[in-house]
């Protein structure tokens, strides 16, 4: 694979004075002789979005698991929230994970618990927050994903899209500064997918959450990269097209363990590389 041509490389962006939230430096990872990531480097700045695209099996989920420390790299360094996490023990990692939420590819909801217990899991189990306050917060985030009435149901009684939104609610309940979404809209109808996209945009623009998004759905990826959310004077959130957001979202294309494209939505649309074109069409 040829190295990424200079004109395809997105500039390492960020507001002046901001420290990156996530830094990958020459990260390598192989499962036995299957080399999944082969020298991956990127930086992600606060409030910005990285969108990973690539064929099935190209290592997108693996990148998210590395950011969380669920997997450790074979070599290279990973810095999250300013701390080197490669080589950390599981106990040290728990402190870093306190600021990171993850929406797993299949939701990974605890099926022995109700929706409310799932969403409040971390607050119930790992913090000293009073139970009444946890309940209030759970109702608040379930309202955010518009699933308030479902608080006492079991995940098995929900539809796929509802489960996905519960997973988002669970990941955001403890107010992490960084959210990782693994294919949050795959398998959803276009309308439901748009509501999920809107949640992601609202979290990013209203709560200042830094986001990493893995997706096959380019439509959703472009939507998130080109829309912004603002609070209307009456208090509710409005999501609308905002061209300046384009500069704050990087698309990253993985192929054969390498980054073959990194740049904004506009740069991706105008890319001429045949593989990229095939992927986009």
């Amino acid at each position, binding site marked *: 694979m040829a190295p990424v041509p200079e004109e395809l490389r997105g500039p390492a962006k960020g507001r002046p004075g901001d420290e990156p939230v996530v830094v990958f430096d020459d990260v390598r990872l192989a499962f036995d002789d299957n080399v999944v990531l082969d020298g991956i480097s990127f930086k992600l700045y606060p409030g910005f979005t990285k969108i990973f695209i690539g064929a099935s099996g190209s290592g997108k989920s693996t990148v998210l698991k590395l950011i969380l420390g669920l997997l450790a790299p074979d070599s290279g360094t990973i810095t999250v929230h300013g701390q080197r996490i490669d080589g950390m023990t599981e106990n040290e990692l728990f402190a870093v*994970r306190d600021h990171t939420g993850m929406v797993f590819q299949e939701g990974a909801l605890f099926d022995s618990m109700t929706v409310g217990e799932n969403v409040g899991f971390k607050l119930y189990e790992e913090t000293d927050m009073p139970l009444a306050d946890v309940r209030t917060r759970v109702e608040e985030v379930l309202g955010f994903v518009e699933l308030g009435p479902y608080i006492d149901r079991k995940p098995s009684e929900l539809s796929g899209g509802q489960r996905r939104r519960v997973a988002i609610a669970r990941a955001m309940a403890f107010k992490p500064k960084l959210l990782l979404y693994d294919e949050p809209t795959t398998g959803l109808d276009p309308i439901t997918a748009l509501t999920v996209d809107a949640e992601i945009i609202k979290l990013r623009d209203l709560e200042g959450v830094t986001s990493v998004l893995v997706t096959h759905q380019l439509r959703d990826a472009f939507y998130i990269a080109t829309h912004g959310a603002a609070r209307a004077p009456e208090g509710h959130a409005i999501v609308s097209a905002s061209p300046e957001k384009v500069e704050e979202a990087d698309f990253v294309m993985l192929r054969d363990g390498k980054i073959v494209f990194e740049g904004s939505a506009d740069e991706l649309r105008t890319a001429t590389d045949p593989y990229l074109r095939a992927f986009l069409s």
Partner: protein
Amino acid sequence: MAAFTEWLKRALLEVQEYSKLAMATARCAVSRPFYWHDFVEQLDAIGIGSMTVVILTGLFTGAVLALQSGFTLDQFGARPFVGRLVSASMIKELGPVLTALMLAGRVSSGIAAELGSMMVTEQVSALRALGTDPVRKLVVPRVLAGILMTPVLTVVANTVGLLGGWVVSVQNLNVASGLYWSSVVDGLFLEDVWMGLLKPFFLGFIIVTVGCHVGLRTRGGTQGVGRATTNAVVAASVGVIAMDFFSTQLLLELLF
């Protein structure tokens, strides 16, 4: 030869991972946080949930022991001693081992299936992502509940076993009720009772840790969960028999 070394390597890896889990469990069991709610839930699931199986097993074992030994004892004209044989074999050996084998079938497989499906649906990863140690949350409550409930269930099995023996002695063998019970007490030595009470702690540990180990190493989707369930029953049953031997040897040295 190559296949054999491959097999050996895998077996050693399995043993190593198992010891690691056992050690992590011990570390987590003596430090905070402790998930009380899960512990109580497991006491119920393992203890109360296994009661029926254990009662039926104990009852029929005691009954068949009385039947068999009554027949043997008749050859020496020693039928009134039937209570001795029932209590000696039930309390020292059969009660603990059969209870443990039933639990291997019920508890180990259940744990392996539950933790296995949590593995393949990434719920275990989700636990870690949310800052919860899966060993603390899933393994420690089950192991402690298993270690506590196995002896309790063994006592239950022993008790109904003696009752089963009594029914058969009185009904089929025409031994007087009082004679049966005094013979039961005669057959028991204090050391035997200790042996019968201490062994289940070891067996309970094996049953639950094997289930947890196999469950947490599950790979490969629903098929993997099926395989894990079968493997857990087989490994736990063999483990129970082996542990029975080693713990008996240890307790013989300590008690006598």
